[in-house]
C-alpha cells in the first residue's frame, strides 16, 4: 500500500516536471520575419553638357558592393560617355574618381565596386564625345 503510494507520487512528479518543462519555456509561435531591404536603388537622371560632368553623392551604411548602370544617354546608341565611382572631397569641391569607364548605355552594370561604410559619389562626364547636351539616366544600387 505504502509502496504503491510512493510510486504514484513519483510518477506524478515526473509528469509534473515534464509538463512544466514544456510549458515553462515561453515559446511563441514562430513567424516569418520580414526581411529588411539591404540595398537602395536610385535613379540619377539629368543632362550632360559638352565637356561637362554631373555628380551625385550617396551614403553607404554597411560594407558591400556598389553597382552603376548607365541605362540611357541621348544621341546615337553608340555614343560613349564616362562613368565613374569615387569619393567626394571633404570641402565639397568635387568627386575624386576611384574607377571610371567609357561606356555606351546598356542594362548590364558598367561599374561594380566593393565599398566600406562612408560617403561616395557617382559621376558621368563627357570624355570628348559629345557635340551637344544629352540627357542621361543612371541606375545606382548600393548597400544600406
Amino acid at each position, binding site marked *: 500500500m505504502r509502496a504503491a503510494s510512493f510510486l504514484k507520487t513519483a510518477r506524478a512528479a515526473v509528469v509534473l516536471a515534464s509538463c512544466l518543462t514544456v510549458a515553462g519555456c515561453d515559446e511563441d509561435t514562430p513567424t516569418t520575419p520580414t526581411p529588411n531591404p539591404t540595398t537602395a536603388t536610385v535613379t540619377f537622371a539629368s543632362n550632360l553638357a559638352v565637356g561637362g560632368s554631373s555628380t551625385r553623392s550617396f551614403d553607404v551604411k554597411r560594407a558591400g558592393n556598389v553597382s552603376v548602370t548607365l541605362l540611357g544617354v541621348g544621341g546615337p546608341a553608340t555614343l560613349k560617355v564616362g562613368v565613374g565611382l569615387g*569619393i567626394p572631397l571633404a570641402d565639397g569641391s568635387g568627386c575624386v574618381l576611384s574607377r571610371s569607364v567609357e561606356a555606351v548605355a546598356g542594362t548590364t552594370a558598367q561599374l561594380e*565596386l566593393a565599398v566600406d561604410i562612408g560617403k561616395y559619389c557617382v559621376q558621368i562626364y563627357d570624355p570628348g564625345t559629345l557635340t551637344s547636351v544629352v540627357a542621361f539616366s543612371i541606375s545606382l544600387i548600393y548597400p544600406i
Partner: protein
Amino acid sequence: MRMFQVFRVGAAFLALSVTAAACSSTTAPSEGDSTITPLEFATLTFAGTLEAKGSGFYSFAVRQAGPVGLTLAAVQTPGGAALSIPVGIGIGVPSGTGCARTTSQSTVPGLAAQLTVTLNPGTYCAAVFDTGNLTAAVNFAMRIRHP
C-alpha cells in the same frame, strides 16, 4: 507519513528544478551591466599630389583603441583621369618631419579599406608613397577611418 510529505516536497522541487534547467534562457544585459563603450569613428580624407619617387603623410589622433582603416580611394592624372597604378600606403608614427611607417603595402586604388590595423590611443600618421611605379606626378585621395 512524514516521509511521504518529505518525498512530496522533494518531488515538487525536482519538477521546478527540471523546468528551470530546461529553459536555457538568457537575460538581456542592462545598460548598467556593462562598461563597454561603442566605438565612434571619424573619417578623414587626405588628398594631394604624389611626385614620382615622392611621399606624403597625414597625422591623426586615435582616441580609442580600435581598428584604423586606410583606403587609397583614387590615383589620378593631373587632368583627373582615374589610374590603376599601385602606390604604397602605410601607417606609422610621426617622427621628426616625417612618418616612420610600421605597416605598409602597395595597392591599387579601391573603395574598400586596403590596410586595417588595430591601434591604441595616440598620434599616428597615414602615409602615401611611390613604390617605383610612377613616372610623373599623380593626384591621390586617401580615406582614413579611425576611432
